[in-house]
């Protein structure tokens, strides 16, 4: 087949991020859910990896563990050689609950600017970054509005603008384009790719859109249904120079796309790698 599963033992020394035997069990008030059973994979520095999997597979859980916001039940997350126990510096996250992650008491501009202030950037630079990122997501006009005055998609774009203005080394995005229209989505996809190429950042991108995962990623990690393990890692061997029209019409794109789709269907039907 066209895929090349990356072995679990392939912990090369160039890995920026290593996820080792990650397991997460939610326990509380009579309900015990093994959300993630055993996840092991690496992400190299400067890689763009997409994660897909059925709803409720534990993608958000995984991202939270990587971000150091949630303690794993077992296993560990190692970033740049150090075990993650709290949010590491230089990392930005776009939460799935974009609406709740914006501060309603701040305007759009202030929401984007606040993390930059915390980084200690000078005023002029902050202004430029905020302006550029709001411009990039098409919200410069609305910069004086409060988040609750915006539509769902606009809120989500504010959260994206905040993350990219932050100029992180590692960018985690949890279904960041779920609430925007097709055209905006395409624009934002290109935005992420161009940012990634320009700044050489490492991106972990959770999405439900299979086309999107293939279009964006260098690799797509497909998760099984819960209790979750890695079903397969699909290397996307499309040319690095991608654009919406030509890339999506490549035969290889269609092949990869249907392969991933296949996997997701398997996952939903409860298929698991042997022995798990």
């Amino acid at each position, binding site marked *: 087949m066209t895929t090349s599963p990356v072995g679990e033992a392939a912990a090369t020394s160039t890995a920026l991020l290593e996820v080792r035997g990650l397991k997460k069990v939610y326990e509380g008030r009579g309900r015990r859910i093994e959300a993630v059973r055993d996840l092991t994979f690496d992400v190299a520095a400067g890689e763009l990896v997409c994660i897909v999997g059925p709803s409720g597979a534990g993608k958000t859980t995984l991202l*939270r563990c990587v*971000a150091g*916001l949630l303690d794993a039940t077992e296993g560990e997350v190692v970033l740049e050689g150090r075990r993650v126990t*709290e*949010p590491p*510096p230089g*990392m*930005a*996250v776009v*939460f*799935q*609950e*974009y*609406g*709740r*992650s*914006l*501060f*309603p*008491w*701040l305007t759009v501009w202030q929401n984007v600017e*606040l*993390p930059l*202030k*915390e980084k200690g950037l000078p005023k002029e630079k902050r202004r430029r970054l905020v302006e550029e990122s709001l411009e990039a997501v098409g919200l410069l006009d609305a910069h004086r509005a*409060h*988040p*609750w005055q*915006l*539509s*769902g998609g606009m*809120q*989500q774009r504010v959260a994206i603008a905040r993350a990219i203005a*932050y100029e992180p080394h590692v960018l985690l995005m949890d279904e960041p384009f779920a*609430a925007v229209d097709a055209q905006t989505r395409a624009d934002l996809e290109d935005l992420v790719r161009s940012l990634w190429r320009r700044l050489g950042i490492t991106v972990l991108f959770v999405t439900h859109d299979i086309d999107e995962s293939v279009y964006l990623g260098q690799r797509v990690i497909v998760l099984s249904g819960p209790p979750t393990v890695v079903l397969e890692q699909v290397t996307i061997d499309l040319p690095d120079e991608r654009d919406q029209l030509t890339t999506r019409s490549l035969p290889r794109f269609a092949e990869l796309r249907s392969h991933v789709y296949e996997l997701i269907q398997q996952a939903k039907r409860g298929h698991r790698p042997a022995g798990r």
Partner: protein
Amino acid sequence: MTAAVTASGPRTGRRRHRPAPAWLLGLIGLAGLVAVVELVPRAGLVDERYLPPCSAMLAALAEQAGTAEFWTALLETLRGWAIGLAIALVAGVVLGIVIGSAPLLRAATASTIEFLRPIPSVALIPLAVLLFGTDMRSTLLLVVYASFWQVLVQVLYGVRDVDPVADQTARMYRFRPLTRVRKVIWPTALPYVMTGFRLGASVALILEITGELIIGSPGLGRQIAVAQSSGAVAPMYALVIVVGLIGVAVNVVARTAERRVLRWHPSVRTEVA
């Protein structure tokens, strides 16, 4: 999972006529109170000698308002109240945020706080007098002691209310502790703090008056005590009316401030919109 997109507007357009402004409604309400207090004694439901009709109280008030003594007493009361409340507010907010955001601290102080809170200020009067005599500091001590708890508990509950996703966002972007307090915890707790302010303000006023009344530090409370022990019913109620009106005024201030600082909050934005 998103913040509000639209202000639900059950009242925006359906009722085409503008709703009556709050101040007008408030005045109508107060007029109703005046009417009741006027009519209840007149109708003989209570003896006029012990609860005079409102007009008599107001007449007594007008009489007192002509004296310099009244105005200095009023100023003394307001001063003691304002200072006490300010101290309690600052202390309550600072300690509330510190204790509230550190679970360990919270667990460690819980029983002590619960022990101290129900100790009535009246029981502390001898101690206050022992320390400061009969001047305003004794009363101040009582005022601060009583209103501090009100603010503290509100702030503790307010800090607990921080949205976990907002909190995670702050941690993610590695906000410094002070920024987290200023930009995440404080705005979340603000509605609680506003209520704490309103509760604390009236408790402070009550203790200011009670302290003056019992300890005899200068102010309206002392005037009330004098009126009470002189059996001067109408002048006594006149002073009580003044105290009540201070309470009303404080609330007007609090509500005005709230409309400014809580513009973004559902409680305000759905009503202003």
